[in-house]
């Protein structure tokens, strides 16, 4: 399931839902991304997330389909928020359910790594020095690249 929304989500309820009624699920793995209050040396008072409606959902769907093709997942969920968020707020939930932990762990990491480099979201941080668009990080590109098939 994929959701792109302004509203917060209840991570616990989503994890419960992921395995509900499916006794083949032996493990659920989750990643929750939060807004930090620091960006390097700068303190961040708020973050605004923008996205490309339409392409965002398509890109997330493609990433989920890729994960399902690579790992034996019983289910997975991706929820990503947009709009203005404060430090400590939840940004994203990625969770996977599988019979065994390895598939759940790996698919979860794959989903967030590819999401970060492929899904059309952009972060703008409000700092004491003014607002600035967050730049993409080479470390994120490297994290995503290790899942490229050779």
């Amino acid at each position, binding site marked *: 399931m994929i959701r792109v929304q302004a509203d917060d989500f209840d991570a616990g309820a989503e994890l419960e839902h992921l395995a509900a009624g499916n006794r083949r699920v032996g493990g659920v793995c989750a990643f929750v991304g939060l807004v930090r209050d620091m960006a390097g040396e700068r303190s961040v008072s708020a973050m605004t997330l923008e996205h490309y409606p339409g392409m965002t959902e398509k890109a997330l769907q493609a990433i989920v389909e890729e994960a399902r093709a690579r790992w034996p997942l019983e289910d997975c969920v991706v929820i*990503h928020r947009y709009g203005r968020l404060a430090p400590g707020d939840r940004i994203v939930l990625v969770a996977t359910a599988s019979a065994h932990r390895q598939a759940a762990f790996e698919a979860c990491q794959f989903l967030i790594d590819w999401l970060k480099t492929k899904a059309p979201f952009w972060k703008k941080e409000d700092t004491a020095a003014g607002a600035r668009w967050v730049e993409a990080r080479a470390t994120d590109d490297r994290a995503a690249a290790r899942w490229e098939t050779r």
Partner: protein
Amino acid sequence: MKVLYFAWLRDKVGFGEESVTPPTDVGDVAGLVDWLRGRGGGHAEALADMAMVRVAVNQEYVTLDQPVAADDEVAFFPPVTGG
């Protein structure tokens, strides 16, 4: 042709969406970029360095040699920073 700009590209261009009718010799993304730059102002600044810009046609990532046509939706944006 519908053209969209996101994040700092939108800030530089001054708006997020426009409808354009490029001349018929504009056949691919590279040609469209050249034509948009030629309009000067914010477009020239936003599209100055395409190494900093990602392009999607009809909501799929493409490279500069991707053909474009009148009924396409073309989006320009920086490398993504979600998650």
